[in-house]
């Protein structure tokens, strides 16, 4: 009995931590999303329960389709390129040549920079009038592109910036995954006469799968909720063309002098659900892997 009590005493901090920083905000967001909050009822209390009205409002809003589509495009394209380039670089660095450690450290810079710095730098580079990218394009005779101010390009521009920021994370995790593959397997396959492509496709890639899935899942969760880069570079514009669910949620709640907390929380919860779904898929994939 006493042993149990001691056990609980040691659990208290983590339980308190979970309740305070996970359960409470989550419950508050759900509560916000099922009530009709006005600024008055936010301050004075007594907002009426309205069930799923906020969700219906959000789903019926034409912005929802754009934001959802943009979120999917932004996330999928970001993940594919971040993972692809990250893996290529990890393979490159796993040969451990001279200076490889130094170079690898340099590739971490995008990750270490504060997002406001990297996003502002990208915005400055992609500026249609004075940006360095258009200056370079102009020098080789290509017409200037309105990277951030044209609805056709804004989403692509923020995606490119996000890919650049995400590569180091993929590089680091995949690199350490590669280190864990025993060299004997590669030696054996080389003895059996496998080409380097066969060796990658039949040995490295399958053995790297557990690391790949967790990298992609973490990347997915990070990318779904990316806000700073888009907000700093385009504010979700022009006229909503780079709005994702994350920026839309912020815009509803704080982008305007009259906050709409209910719909904002509803959009936030849709995002949480999407991330949760991805988590469930991961658990299932992992279980299958363990079973096989």
């Amino acid at each position, binding site marked *: 009995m006493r042993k149990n009590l001691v056990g609980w005493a040691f659990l208290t901090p983590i339980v308190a931590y979970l309740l305070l920083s996970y359960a409470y905000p989550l419950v508050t967001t759900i509560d916000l999303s099922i009530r009709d909050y006005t600024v008055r009822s936010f301050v004075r209390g007594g907002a009426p329960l309205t069930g799923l009205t906020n969700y219906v409002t959000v789903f019926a809003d034409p912005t929802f389709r754009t934001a959802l589509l943009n979120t999917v495009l932004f996330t999928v394209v970001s993940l594919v390129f971040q993972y692809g380039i990250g893996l290529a670089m990890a393979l490159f660095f796993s040969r451990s040549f001279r200076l490889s450690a130094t170079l690898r450290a340099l590739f971490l810079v995008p990750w270490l920079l504060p997002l406001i710095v990297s996003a502002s730098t990208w915005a400055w580079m992609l500026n249609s009038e004075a940006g360095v990218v258009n200056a370079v394009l102009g020098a080789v005779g290509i017409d200037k592109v309105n990277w951030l101010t044209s609805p056709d390009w804004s989403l692509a521009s923020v995606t490119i910036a996000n890919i650049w920021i995400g590569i180091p994370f993929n590089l680091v995790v995949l690199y350490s995954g590669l280190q864990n593959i025993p060299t004997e397997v590669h030696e054996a396959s080389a003895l059996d006469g496998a080409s380097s492509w066969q060796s990658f496709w039949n040995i490295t890639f399958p053995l790297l799968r557990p690391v790949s899935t967790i990298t992609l899942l973490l990347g997915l969760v990070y990318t779904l909720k990316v806000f700073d880069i888009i907000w700093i570079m385009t*504010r979700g514009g022009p006229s909503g063309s780079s709005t994702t669910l994350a920026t839309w949620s912020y815009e509803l709640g704080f982008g305007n002098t009259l906050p709409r907390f209910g719909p904002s929380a509803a959009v936030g919860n849709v995002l949480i659900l999407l991330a949760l779904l991805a988590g469930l898929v991961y658990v299932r994939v992992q279980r299958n892997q363990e079973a096989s």
Partner: protein
Amino acid sequence: MKRSPITQRFAVALVAAGLTLSACSSSTGDAGGTTADGTFAVWDPYPQFDGGSQWAKVIENCGTQAGVKVERQAYDTSDLTNKVLLAAQQGVAPNVLVVDNPVVSTLAEAGVLKANQDTGLDASKASPNLVTAAESDGKTYGVPIGANTLALYYNKAVLTAAGVDPASIKDWASLDAALAKVAAAGKKGITFSAIGTEEGTFQFLPWFWGAGAQLTDLSSPQAVAAVELWKSWLDKGYAPNSVIGNTQTTSWQEFATGEYAFAENGTWQLGNAKKAGFEYGVIPIPSRTGGVAPAPTGGEFVTVPAQDDKDSEATAAKIANCLTSPDTVLATDTALTYVSAVASVQDQQVAAQPELQVWVDAVKSAKGRTGDNLGTRYPRISQPLWTAVQAALTASKAPADALKDAQAAAASAK
């Protein structure tokens, strides 16, 4: 299982951290509102002024005159609304709040602010066109501390080289003609901010109102004319495409390169204009058919948030009256580069700095965005409006269609 001393220490540290956190949160709870020792909290959006600034001293003096000790907190202006809403929710709103004018109606609607009629705050000395921003259902919430607004800065060298006399610009047609000459001379015409935030609407309103359009009807032919004017500038290359993403700061940076003839910007850039390294001048924004277009007013209001203790509200009103009284406000407005809200102080400002005359005139014909009893309807109109302007400028919708959609969105929001 045997626990290592490290895990134990870690657990203790966690508990200690938790305790410190809760201790912190209960002490910050007293930051707003009257504390036990009778300190009055004043919140303002002027983080650029530190504890030794003139503004901090003015607040301290006004507190002493009212017989209380004041504690000042400065927040970033975009942060202040949420901070105040949360503080009011927790019952710890500040005693005196200095807040951006379009937010006043939102806070009044939330029941955070007391009406002047109930606290003894006196807005009678301020110009009526400025006070309208804080009027809602016959009550007034606060007193303007000063005002800023928009006008057209011009680069003298660029205009001279293009053969344009700034005094000839009286309406849209003459402005267009001037821009055509500047473009023909190989310089850039005009820069402004059409970003997809409140700033974009703020910059668009002088043209919108100058065309004769009303915020209650976004799809009127006058409104379409205003959007078409901006769009024609982009199409003809008078304005750069970057205006779609420009904030007022980045737009100013473009003007400061010396390549542009005109920039639509505010009173607050006067200090930077002197540092720009070229000769500049300022003309009011022309309306469509001639005369000065009504520009939106910027600038803060001094307000008194509601407290449980009625006596403290009366004392807070005394402090607020002191902060906005003609004797003290001149120094504050000079420090902020604002035009005063009080006519007699405006005369003093012009006497000291004759170049302020054009700004005083602009402020006199300016309009509050939340005026015309729009109040909290304004934010629901402003958002569709900036979206429509962006849609038209990027050519994703025709101006008339974009504004029709905007009107539908604004109307559905009640």
